[in-house]
């Protein structure tokens, strides 16, 4: 879900995704780089994200991942689901 959300902002390569998640969460969430790539490939196989080779900011060839339409739909669902869950947890916590 985090990967999908990150990619919602535009195409990005693996390193960029890891960096982005880390920065956005203000260093709270740290992506395990070893499992990032298998996760990306799985999403690609599932058709939630697409991939193509392009030029990175420092002129190197890099694999850029971007969200597909299916991925966007899945992200929306996941977000809904997450928000419901988060709200529910929050309510329980407040009730005490």
């Amino acid at each position: 879900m985090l990967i999908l959300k990150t990619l919602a902002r535009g195409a990005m390569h693996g390193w960029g995704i890891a960096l982005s998640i880390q920065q956005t969460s203000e260093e709270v969430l740290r992506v395990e780089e070893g499992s990032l790539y298998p996760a990306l490939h799985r999403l690609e196989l599932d058709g939630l994200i697409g991939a193509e080779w392009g030029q990175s900011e420092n002129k190197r060839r890099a694999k850029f991942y971007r969200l597909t339409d299916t991925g966007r739909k899945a992200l929306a669902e996941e977000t809904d689901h997450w928000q419901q869950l988060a709200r529910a947890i929050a309510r329980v916590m407040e009730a005490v």
Partner: protein
Amino acid sequence: MNRFGKRLRALWRRRQLDRDLEEEMAFHLAMSERQTGDRTAARRRLGNPTAVKEACRDLWAFTALEAWWRDFRCALRTLRNSPVVTATAVVALGLGIGANTTVFTIVSSALRFDMAVDHIERMVALHPGEALANLDPASQPLLDFPNLRSQVKTVENLAAYRFSAVNVSDSHALPERYWRVQMTASGWNMVRPKPQLGREFEPEDERANATPAVLLSHRLWERRYGDDPSILGQSIRIDDIDHVVVGVMPAGSQFPEDAELWTPVTLMDMADPAFRRSLLVFGRLADGVTLAAAQSEVDGVARRAIAGKVNGPVVRVRPFLEMVGVYDQRAMLIAMVFAVGFVLLIVCADVANLLLARAAARAREISIRIAIGAGRARIIRQLLVESVLLSAAGGLAGWTVALAGLRWFDGMSAQGHRPSWIQFSMDARGFAYLAAISVGAGILFGLAPAMQLAKVDVNSAIKDGGRGAESPRGRRLASLLVGFQMALCVVLLAASGLMIHSTVNLYNAPLSIDPSNVLTMRVDLPEAKYPNADSVSGFYRRLKTALGALPGVTEVSLASHLPMAGWREFRGEVEGAQGKPGSLGQLAALVVDANYFRTLAVRLRRGQPFDENGGARSQVVVNESFAAKFWPGEDPIGKRLRAAGGHEAQPWLTVTGVAADVQQNRMRPLERTALIYLPYDTEPQPSVYVITRTAVPPGTLVEAFRRAVQSLDQNLPAQDVLSLEDHISNQRLNVTAFGKLFSIFAAIALVLAWVGLYAVVAHAVSRRTQEIGIRMAMGGTRRNIFGLVLSQGMRQVAGGFAAGIPLATLVTRGLSHGLVGVSPSDPATYAGVAIVLGLAGFLGCAIPARRAIRVDPLAALRHE
């Protein structure tokens, strides 16, 4: 599906995928390094790039499948690298699997024998019981079908049929004789297949004045009428009565008998008491009714119909399946499946031993695999893939063996009158069986060596360079396998020994006739055209004259039965033997003419044949057994006997001669039966065998015989024109064919078990070279060494023999039906088995033992 497609695409662009992953990782590391400025830290954060790449690659690939594929290629390579081992195993497996598939196909086609009737296992047939033997046939109540049908409740859908041979003549081909079933409509209710052409019988066909209708079998339609559908509606003559063909039954439909023609039972037929008596009554047990319950009810119903008091059951209710031809041979067939299964087990043990021996050499390879991280399960899997591949190759070889075997058996059984269940081909079922036993055998013989190897002690195996795998357990396993092979071998040798013994008994039994240069044929006169005794005997007189006039024919005679082909039973009374069991009751008789004894060269021990001119009507000839049974120590000439029963007393017949015992019993050829030879003129029969002695080879006269019959009656077929020698070998086919099969299996088994023993002992000798060297250096004589090796091998043979005996007695019990003059536990046969096995075992051990005593102690020790 989309996902699957992507993965498939990736399969073709594997290089591309690898390069992409490589580059992706490199890029990631470069970026990471740039940020932190520390190469090692960047690496630490990512972890092992190879592992990451592998995890990604697994996503794209069919990992599990590819592993199987790798195992497969690896196994192929291993097998190719040791061509001798592979070839040996494939040949042995091919023989084993091929023999099994052959037997399976034969036995399954025999046992499957589908009569296309629902719930055949609940069907019963009603046979006359012992009590009826002493009653006048004319008053037999059992066969009064209408009576039974109206009263019996425990057996549903009571039906009846008559099975008889009829002459068919029409414009399509020469007249011929076929089997015909006349069956009631209730019987047709049980038959599943519908005519493939035309219609079924309808209620109108059973009316008294109905036009006679007939259904043809597919076989008859094909052979006689050339698949021509226009036969429908045409008329054919059956026993000189016109019948309209209303339909053709589909191929393979043979209920209740394997007939070529089916006709309905009309009310007119049913009105005839003689016809009713000839019916066989059958039906299906009602729900929840046992055989015993049906027996007591049916017997009660039949008993009420008899006026007087009778002893014993009047009716016997027996499963219908008992009447099916193959039923008698069921035990024999199942014994054969066991026998051939044992051959395959021996093959498996051989191959397992082969692989065990090779396992020693491969211990190093396997240890290295384990050392670099292969799991034991993975190793076992790889070895099993190897052995299954081996047995699959064996299966392929087995296929060709099976095809050849089936053709051989087909050819052999085609010589005689082929039983209807022998109609086999290599069908899908046989192929599935082949595949199943191939894979099963592969796992069976592969598992033990694979487990052995996977347990290898990695450390010592790598250090010792291979000897580490020679664990005592492995050796024990090998000798256990050899003992097992020997035990199975004992079973097969015993079975084939008994069969060979039977065959010898069969051929040694005195026939008391001279079967060479005798041609026989069967003629059946239809009742419609030859209604009385005069017309029948008139025809045969003319036929005898016509045949006797043929050049090359020296003697012509008539007989109701050929030798080894049974007899007729009738109720009779023997004078002067009152009180002796059987003196008033069923007597066995053949109806022959006076020339019978001269034609077959049957010796008359006393007296002479009945006199054909004049006195024949009151004369009779008995055989030696009959004379010994009823008049022991007396002169039988001049004694009298007569037919009993019926309402009026029959005339006495005087014995004029005593003939030697001719083999007449069909099922038990060695049994001597007390027989009477009744003169043909007393009982002119419409169906007889014509027996002729010829001066030329009998085969050359077949056509002349057919023409002679046709010249007297052009609608009459000459059937089974056969030399007597062919007839006799047909009668013996059952024993000789099974005997041949068992002998072949036993021979294969012996060779394979011998190879197994030899290999194990030879392997042990080569492994113990140093030990033997030391023994010799310490003063062991050659005789000691020879004895040492021999005793080690013979212990396995003896153990196998001991274990095989009880197994053999179990299996050979199934053979008892087919044995002739030998009991299943014949001590001579077992002694023979012991000798054969002992000799084979001795040879198997002596050859390696000879090698052992040639060991040069110096060379052996220097080797260390």
